[in-house]
Every structure is written in structure tokens, then in C-alpha cells.
């Protein structure tokens, strides 16, 4: 198995399911929990890990509806992140979710792709049917972003196995996969899972996958797959911004990517203190 080659302190921030444009849980315009304040809470938390290199993994569903002005709100959010980490290297990895897809458009991921390029300045993150898996090598890790909707049909959630295998084969380091959809049904009748999940898991075990990150479920999830050295972790993250019902989470996850392939997972829940109405972040055991 390959080893990470870096001594740099690399932190990976997994944020997903922003749903910009949806009615927010609180009055963002004047209440205690504005978009700016959420960005500040995330930034403060990441800063406490003192990263030298920061990988921001954006797990899709950036807007609630795939229109450019909602991506525009998202850009402002990420500008805050960029400003806060000017002295440290930031690498973005990004994949689309079902809300980034406009099935009726001639270019179903058109608005998402323009947002992804503006953020990453990397043409690799322009997704199409022929290009659904993206590989970027960073700090001794192979970062793989997967479009689970490469079919461009909302209800056909799949990984392109050939493209994924080709990318995994060419990966030079231990692999972290970022995708929107989950692999295991979360409730009875859950139809939104990756339909060829078993094959994806097999590929992961075959090609040195260490961590698979996903969103979509708006709650947390953590599973180990495989045994001993042939194993990886699946970590699902709650939604960062939108209004959520009971049993769901406003969440972000931070991973310390150690040089010895050790990955430490820290999950955080965004909460409002009911008595004082003050927003805050508390660690979440997952």
C-alpha cells in the first residue's frame, strides 16, 4: 500500500448541502445566525487545528435550485474562507449533488461547472457525462471527486465504474473520495443511494481507498468497510445551512490527515443556545 509522503499538517474540512436559496432555519438577515456568522464559526473551528495546508471538500447541493444567482451567494461564503486562510495553502475539491443538476437545461451542470471553476480555477472540475471522476494529488493524498449523477438524471444515482477504476489505478497516493450520495440506505425504502454501491466498495478496497466522504443524508453516518489493511471509512456529513427537521443535523466535519495515514475525524454540530439565542458549535460524536 502506498504511503502519504508529507509532513505538512493537512486539515480536510468537509462541508456539504448548503442549499443556498432555501428558506433558512433562522432569520439569516437579522437573527443571530447569519451566513456570515456560520462561515465565522466554521473558520474559528478550523483555525483551532492550525492547518498548514487546508483541503476544503465541498460535497454538492450548493444551491437549492441550480441557478447562477444562488451560486453567487455561495461565492461570497467561500470568499470569507479564502480571506481567513490567506497564509495557508487552500485546495478545493468539489462534486455536484442533485440540487446542482438542472435536468431541463441543455447543459445540466452548466451553472455548477462555472461555479466549480471559479472556486478551484481548475478545468478538471468541469463535469460531464464523459468526465465524472476527477483526480487531484495534494499533500501525499489522492483526492478523487465523483459525480454520482453523471447520468444527468436525478433518479439515476450511479458511479461510472470504468472512469472510477481508471482514476483509482492512476492514483499515486492513498485515496480520499468525495461524492454527494451515500452507499447504504438510511431508512426503509431509501431510493437515493448509489445504485452500484457494491461495485464502488469493491473498487475502493482494491485500490487503496482510505476515506469516502458523502453528504445528501442531512445527518451523520460513520461506517468501516473491509478488514485490517484492506479497509476504509465511510463518513457522511449533515447539511451545513438549511432548515432541518428532527433527527437531522447542521454539521461540518474536520479530518486531520496524518503522515502515517492516520485520519482523525472530528464532527461538529451548529447549534443555537435556546436561552440566549447565541449560535455556537459543539463536538458531535459520530
Amino acid at each position: 500500500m502506498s504511503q502519504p509522503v508529507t509532513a505538512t499538517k493537512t486539515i480536510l474540512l468537509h462541508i456539504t448541502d448548503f442549499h443556498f436559496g432555501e428558506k433558512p432555519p433562522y432569520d439569516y438577515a437579522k437573527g443571530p445566525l447569519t451566513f456570515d456568522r456560520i462561515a465565522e464559526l466554521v473558520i474559528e473551528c478550523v483555525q483551532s487545528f492550525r492547518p498548514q495546508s487546508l483541503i476544503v471538500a465541498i460535497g454538492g447541493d450548493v444551491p437549492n435550485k441550480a441557478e447562477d444567482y444562488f451560486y453567487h451567494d455561495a461565492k461570497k461564503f467561500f470568499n470569507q474562507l479564502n480571506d481567513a486562510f490567506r497564509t495557508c495553502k487552500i485546495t478545493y475539491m468539489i462534486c455536484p449533488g442533485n440540487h446542482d443538476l438542472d435536468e431541463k437545461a441543455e447543459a445540466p451542470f452548466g451553472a455548477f461547472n462555472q461555479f466549480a471553476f471559479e472556486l478551484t480555477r481548475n478545468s478538471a472540475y468541469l463535469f460531464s457525462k464523459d468526465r465524472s471522476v476527477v483526480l487531484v494529488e495534494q499533500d501525499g493524498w489522492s483526492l478523487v471527486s465523483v459525480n454520482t449523477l453523471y447520468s444527468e438524471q436525478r433518479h439515476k444515482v450511479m458511479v461510472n465504474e470504468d472512469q472510477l477504476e481508471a482514476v483509482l489505478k492512476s492514483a499515486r497516493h492513498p485515496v480520499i473520495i468525495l461524492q454527494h450520495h451515500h452507499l447504504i440506505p438510511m431508512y426503509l425504502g431509501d431510493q437515493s443511494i448509489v445504485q452500484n454501491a457494491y461495485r464502488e466498495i469493491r473498487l475502493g478496497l482494491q485500490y487503496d481507498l482510505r476515506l469516502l466522504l458523502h453528504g445528501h443524508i442531512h445527518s451523520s453516518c460513520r461506517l468501516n468497510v473491509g478488514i485490517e489493511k484492506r479497509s476504509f471509512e465511510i463518513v457522511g456529513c449533515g447539511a451545513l445551512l438549511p432548515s432541518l427537521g428532527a433527527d437531522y443535523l447542521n454539521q461540518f466535519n474536520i479530518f486531520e490527515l496524518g503522515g502515517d495515514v492516520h485520519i482523525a475525524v472530528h464532527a461538529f454540530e451548529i447549534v443555537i443556545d435556546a436561552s440566549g439565542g447565541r449560535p455556537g458549535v459543539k463536538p458531535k460524536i459520530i
Partner: protein
Amino acid sequence: MEIVKTNPSEHLEHLWAKANDAVPQKTRVFNLILSGVFPIEEPKGIWIQGSLKKAKQWQSYPKPVNLIFSHGDYILRFFKGTQINRGIDFLADELRQKTDTNRACWSLLTMELLRDTPQDVSIPSFMVLQAGLSENKERLILTAYFRALEVNRFLPINLGELCLIASRLHQKLLSFPLKELELNIHAFSAYNDPDYSCLEKAEIDYYDNIDLTLAVGALDTTLIARLLEGKTRLKESQIIPVGVTALLDAIQKHNRRAKTGMKAYAEEVTTSLTDALELIKEYNEVRTTSSYHQRGGELYEEIRKELKIAIDNLTKWK
């Protein structure tokens, strides 16, 4: 003068990215020149596909309801017929008849338009397009002149328009061995404003007046809030007052007719809409004297604030 060029391995998105680096926000760059040579298939690239829907709207004739005007309006007024292809046919015919022609041009503005159009009426910044062929006929050259160019949000649409023109021309010039597309953009005044509306109208400004009045009568505050939120989201060069005026009028009439037991909209709603309209008037006056005046920015924020007050009070009743 600022010259921005792409390398041979780069694509349209890189030209856009370099333009954004050359023109930071809150600056104004005179004579920005953007230039790149791409494969003739570049208009099929993934990045530019995201701009083609809006680019088609800008090339359409007549203009779609959500735009203040379209470039198609200004191109096709000189041609008989209503298809954009008439304009393309003109360029293609020129190039076919005389391959070294210097007349394969579109001029969107005339002296009359420039002289006679009032300051508060928008006219195209895209003024001239010229098409040509290299000597070996392997390269299609498109050069466009803009009197002003917003590089963050409008440039992708403009590049999309040039791609549409290039693809359509390519289809009509299949007898030439075209392999490359050279794009050149000359912008007299370039600026970078990610909030710019790109001359799109807010939905409230093209929403049917009767439907709006019915929504007010039916106390459909969700719809009214959505329309007002759409208005706050757009940063217009000249703020269109039509929709807010119609909404205020409908609410005032509803309130006058509201009988006992029938809900009337809170005074905060009518007051803030009235104040917003006053501020819009002042803003539009300021904009006729300068496109870059600081007071314009301040007024814009005040208008947004008033509209947000109206939204917040929509479900509060008299």
C-alpha cells in the same frame, strides 16, 4: 492598456479567469484586450456550455421578457426577417464572396442611437463585431469592441455569444478548412462587479399586473415575498421601478377596500415600499451623472434595506 492572452493549451475559462485577475473588483481598467486562439470546436467546451442559455437569450430577437434589451434586437433591425441567422448569413456571405473582406461586420449602434438615446435608457455595450479568415483559411477570426465590459458575470455571456456566432458561421463555411478560432475582445472600460444583474429584469418587473393584483387580494405573501426578494438580489444599473410601483398601488387599493374582518397590509409595508421608490428615483438620477458614484452604492443598500423591511412585515396585518 492591459493585454490578456491565453496559452495554446488553455481554454475559454482561462481567458475569463485571466480577465478577472487583470481587472480586480472596485477598479476600472481602460482598454482591456482579451485574445486567444482555440480549436474550432472550442464552443462545445464544457465551461462555456454553462453560458449558452443566457447567450442565446442575448442573441435572440425579439428579446425575451426577462432582459431589458437583447443584442439580437440591435443586429436584426437591419435585416429583413426575424431569425438571428439573417445576421449570420450576412457575415457568411461576405466571407464567401470575398475571403479577405473587411466588411463582414455587425454594428449594433448607430450615431443616431448614441446621440439620441437618453442617459437613463440602456443600450448595448457590445458595439461592433468583425469576422475574418486567415490567409490559409484555417482560422476564423472574430473581433468585438465593447464600450464597457463587466468581466465577472457578463464576460462569460459575451464569450458564449461569440461562441454561438462562431459555431453558426462554421456551419455555413464548411467549404473552408477551418481548424482554429481566434477571439479578440477590446473593451474601452472594463470593470469587475460580481453583483451585476447583467441587465436582467427582476421577475416582479415583468410579472403580469393582473396576477400581481390578484396575489395581493389573495394575501399571497409567499409569492409577494419571492418577487421582492428577487428584486433585492439584482444589482441594476438603472433600477426599474415598475414592479414595486405596481405592488404598492395594488396594496394601497386593497387596503382602501379592506372591510371589517378582511386583513389589510401593515403600514410598514406601504411605508417601506414608498421609501424604496423615492430612493430608486434618487438612485437613477445619480446614475445619469456617473456610473461609478459612491452615493449610488449607498443608495442601493438603502433600497435593499427598505425592500427587506417590506418583506419582513408582509405577514403583519393592520
